[in-house]
C-alpha cells in the first residue's frame, strides 16, 4: 500500500513537472495579434532595411496578417523555445543583453533596445560558436515576420529572396556599427549611451554595465554623473 502511494506521488510529481514546463514554455512564448500602432513602425523598419531599389516590393504586402507577436518572459532565453530561423524580428518592448563567454567571463557585447531588428544567427545552435545567449531583463514583446509566409501570401518569391539576402547582410553590418561607435571615443560613447538608455540603469547591474563598456566601476560612476547632470 505504502509503495503504491509513493508510486502515485512520484507519477503525480512527474506529470506536474512536465505540465509546468509546458506552461512555462507556453507563457514564455505566446502569440497575440500586432498592435495597429506598432504595425507602421515594423513596416517602416523592414522597408528601411531593404535596398531602396527593392522597397516598392513592399507596397502590396499586408504585414499585419504575417507578423506574429511573441511575448517573452524575463530571464535567459533557451534558443529552442523560440524558432526565429528565416524570420526578421523587431523588438517591440524590453531590453535584451547579448551575452558571451569570453576568457571565462560572461560579457555583454551589446544590448538590443525598443525598435531594434534582431537576428537569431548569433544564438542559433548550429552557428553559435561563442555560446551567445540572449538575456531578457524584463518581459518583452517581439514582432516576428516569417519570411516564408510572405511567399505564400503574395505568391511571389522575389520579396522573400530580397529580404533574406538583405537580413543576412544586415546582421553582420550591425556589428560593425557597434564597433565603430565604441572604438572612436569610449567616454563619449558611454555617456551618450547612458543618456539615451537611462532606463537600463534601473535594470542592469553596475557590474554588468561596467563590463559592457569595458571600464571600471569608478569610471562608470563618474560617467553616470556626467550623463545625468545634463539630463
Amino acid at each position: 500500500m505504502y509503495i503504491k502511494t509513493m508510486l502515485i506521488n512520484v507519477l503525480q510529481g512527474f506529470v506536474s513537472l512536465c505540465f509546468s514546463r509546458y506552461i512555462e514554455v507556453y507563457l514564455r512564448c505566446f502569440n497575440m495579434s500586432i498592435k495597429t500602432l506598432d504595425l507602421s513602425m515594423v513596416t517602416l523598419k523592414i522597408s528601411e532595411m531593404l535596398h531602396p531599389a527593392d522597397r516598392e516590393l513592399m507596397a502590396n504586402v499586408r504585414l499585419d496578417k504575417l507578423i506574429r507577436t511573441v511575448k517573452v518572459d524575463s530571464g535567459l532565453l533557451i534558443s529552442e523555445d523560440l524558432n526565429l530561423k528565416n524570420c526578421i524580428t523587431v523588438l517591440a518592448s524590453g531590453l535584451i543583453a547579448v551575452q558571451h563567454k569570453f576568457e571565462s567571463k560572461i560579457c555583454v557585447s551589446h544590448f538590443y533596445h525598443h525598435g531594434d531588428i534582431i537576428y537569431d544567427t548569433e544564438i542559433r545552435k548550429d552557428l553559435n560558436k561563442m555560446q551567445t545567449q540572449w538575456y531578457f531583463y524584463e518581459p518583452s514583446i517581439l514582432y516576428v515576420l516569417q519570411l516564408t509566409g510572405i511567399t505564400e501570401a503574395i505568391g511571389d518569391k522575389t520579396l522573400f529572396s530580397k529580404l533574406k539576402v538583405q537580413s543576412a547582410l544586415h546582421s553582420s553590418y550591425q556589428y560593425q556599427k557597434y564597433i565603430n561607435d565604441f572604438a572612436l571615443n569610449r567616454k563619449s560613447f558611454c555617456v551618450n549611451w547612458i543618456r539615451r538608455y537611462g532606463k537600463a540603469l534601473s535594470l542592469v547591474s553596475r557590474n554588468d554595465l561596467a563590463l559592457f563598456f569595458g571600464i571600471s566601476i569608478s569610471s562608470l560612476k563618474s560617467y553616470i554623473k556626467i550623463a545625468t547632470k545634463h539630463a
Partner: protein
Amino acid sequence: MTMLGKTVSTEFTCSLAHAFDGPYHYLPGENIWEVGEKDCFVWFIQSGFGFDRILLEDGHKMLNGMSEPGIFICDEKSLLWGGPSASDSIVSTPTTAYRVPFREFREFLSQNEEFRENLAQINAYFVHMRKLRLLKMKHMNKADYWVDIKERFPGIELYCTQTEIANYFAVSKSTMHRLMR
C-alpha cells in the same frame, strides 16, 4: 569545395566565379576603391595585402580591416543601401583582384538559392569575427591584443598611422604609443 566548413557544389562555385571579371592589378599605395565612388563592386583578393577604412558620420576615417588573399571585400553600406561608397581600400603590397558590380552581385544572390543559404552561414561567421573583435577591444589585455594584431596584420605599423591603430584598438593615442614602443 568547402566554404566555411560547408560543402558547396561545383556548379555554384563556377557560376560565382563566372560573375567576376579581371584580373585587376594594383601597386602599393593605390586605391582599389575610394570614398564617394558611385559604381561599386564586390572584390575578390587573389593576392596582396591592404587596409580598408570607413568614413564615419562625424567625418572621422576609421581603420576597418585588412584585405588579404582569399577574401571578398566591398563597401558594405553601399552594398546594403546603395549610394556612393563610404569607405576606401588601399593596397600595401602588389595586389591582384577580381570584381563584380553590386547590381549583378545582388541579382546573383537573389536568384541563387544555394548562395542565399550559404550567405547566412558566411554572415554568421562575420558576426562571430566582429563580436570577437568587440570583446577583445573591451576585455583583452592591451599588450596581448597588440601581439595578436601584429600576428594577424603583419606590418600594420608601417601602413597605418598610430592614431588609426589606436582607434582600431579603442585606446588613447598615448596608450597606443606606449604599447608600440
